[in-house]
């Protein structure tokens, strides 16, 4: 469980994170989505007590992160996979974490196994690792303490498709056993596959929060008929918004059943009628953050015009 309340971070006049509130529930993977510079990483650092908040608060498992005794055993954190000493071996990185948090050192082997780093790889220095291997090592560090909460910033970055698939299964499994997962990414497709709840942030503000299916559901219907022009006329008379698609068919702002009734009344033969496709996360994302993107040109700071 992570609770973020009115979290705000200012750097001088610039507002990096502006009154952000959301909760991350156990049993779910919550995706934290936003364009670069939207404040994702700053928010995550504030949750972990690394960046002091200007105002507001964040609690993890009911306490501020910094008040957790031995937080490595309660919360697994990966904020930057590249932030490892290049001169240490992968195994040594985990050994240090195990010593510090008091984890049985036998867990190092099983965790390395879990993230798919071989004995040979773990004996190499981190400086020689690919980004994907560093991500795996970072996820291993996060999981080492057998935590209840995972906070991962862009963990899919640098993973190959198989690695991304593996991570998705891992997070699914973690959440299904009652774990809490907060995961940031700009890889929209991945987020769509792995997260069941989503928080969208744009220029420091939460612009949408909720269940992925709710956010992606789009009202409306798609219809094709033997006489689209007549059907469009009939629908417009009924007050529904209609868009004639270049590829044939109509996109209608009405439920399929109402479109069917209108067609029956107008005597038009339907060839195809179904609910509109759910939007991709990409469309949602671009739509929600578009305003911010347009306001941006020329602005040096991220001063927010209050909506």
């Amino acid at each position, binding site marked *: 469980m992570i609770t973020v309340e009115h979290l705000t971070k200012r750097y001088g006049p610039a507002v990096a994170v502006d009154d952000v509130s959301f909760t991350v529930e156990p049993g779910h993977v919550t995706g934290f989505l936003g364009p670069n510079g939207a404040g994702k990483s700053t928010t995550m650092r504030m949750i972990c007590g690394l960046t002091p908040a200007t105002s507001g608060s964040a609690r993890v498992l009911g306490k501020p992160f910094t008040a957790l005794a031995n937080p490595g055993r309660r919360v697994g954190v990966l904020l930057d996979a590249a932030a490892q000493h290049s*001169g240490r071996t992968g195994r040594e990185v985990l050994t240090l974490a195990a010593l510090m948090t008091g984890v049985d050192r036998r867990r190092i082997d099983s965790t390395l196994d879990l993230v798919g780093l071989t004995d040979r790889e773990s004996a190499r220095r981190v400086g020689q690792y690919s980004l994907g291997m560093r991500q795996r090592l970072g996820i291993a560090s996060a999981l080492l303490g057998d935590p209840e909460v995972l906070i991962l910033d862009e963990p899919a970055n640098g993973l190959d498709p198989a690695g991304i698939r593996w991570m998705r299964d891992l997070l699914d499994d973690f959440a299904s056993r009652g774990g809490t997962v907060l995961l940031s990414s700009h890889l929209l497709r991945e987020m769509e596959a792995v997260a069941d709840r989503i928080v969208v942030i744009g220029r420091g503000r939460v612009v949408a929060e909720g269940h992925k299916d709710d956010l992606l559901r789009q009202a409306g219907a798609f219809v094709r008929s033997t006489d689209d022009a007549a059907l469009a006329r009939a629908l417009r008379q009924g007050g529904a918004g209609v868009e004639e698609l270049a590829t044939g068919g109509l996109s209608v702002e009405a439920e399929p059943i109402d479109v069917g009734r209108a067609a029956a009344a107008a005597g038009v033969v339907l060839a195809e009628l179904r609910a509109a496709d759910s939007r991709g996360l990409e469309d949602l994302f671009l739509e929600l953050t578009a305003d911010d993107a347009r306001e941006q040109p020329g602005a040096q700071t991220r001063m927010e015009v209050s909506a």
Partner: protein
Amino acid sequence: MTTASSVEPVETRTRRPRATPDVRPLTFATLTLVEWRKQLDTRAGRWMLAVIAIITAAVLAVMMAVSGGNHSFSAFVVGTTTPMAMLLPIVGVLAATSEWSQRTALVTFTLEPRRTRVGLAKVVAAIGSGLALLVLTIGLAALAHLLVVAFRDADPAWDVSVRAVLYLALSVVLFMAQGVGFGLLLRSTPAAIVTLLLAPTLFGLLGGLVPGMADVLPWVDLGTAGEPLLFGSALDGEGWAQLGTATLIWVVAPLVGGLWRTARSEISSS
């Protein structure tokens, strides 16, 4: 904006039976041991200590070779402690700066958010390394003296007092705390090392040029005030007072500043 309603009931998911009620808080001893290991588990750290050991051995070898090897134990000890005095603070610097130059601060302070404890653990661990090295070099000096007595007919002179050893130990403590302090304060290895090596020297030089500074210098220059520690001459009351004020300026102030900066600042990976 959609509310945080969960469509999928949480009850269908099985709660994981958790077996971690025995989470122990991090002790300072644990932190210190981890920090000590961090000084030694990288090539940079190992090389630093190895270089000190090699230079020490080289100095001893040269001393054994020249002028018939006829040196007292104390002469050998002075020979070994000089390179140590130069290089030990760098071990302290590295212990602190590597967190930033290698960006491990992000992980370190996530695992232990009480940053001042981490900083103090670094000081204690660095002092531990320094004292271990001191014992090793005194041992080497003793061995060197034993060898010249046995094989080069040198006069046996086991003339190192307990006081001299304690003075050396105190100087190691000061060097290490100073190194960690400058490292935490400046966060950059080159900047910290250059400042550490040059600042007191420049300070001493400039002080020598200013008339009237000669009286003040022993009170504010650690090099001058700390000299008796390295060469074993007994400190009197005034000497201790001078060591105290110089330590305040060159060891305590940077360390407190470094710890303060660490506790206050934002820990970020870039």
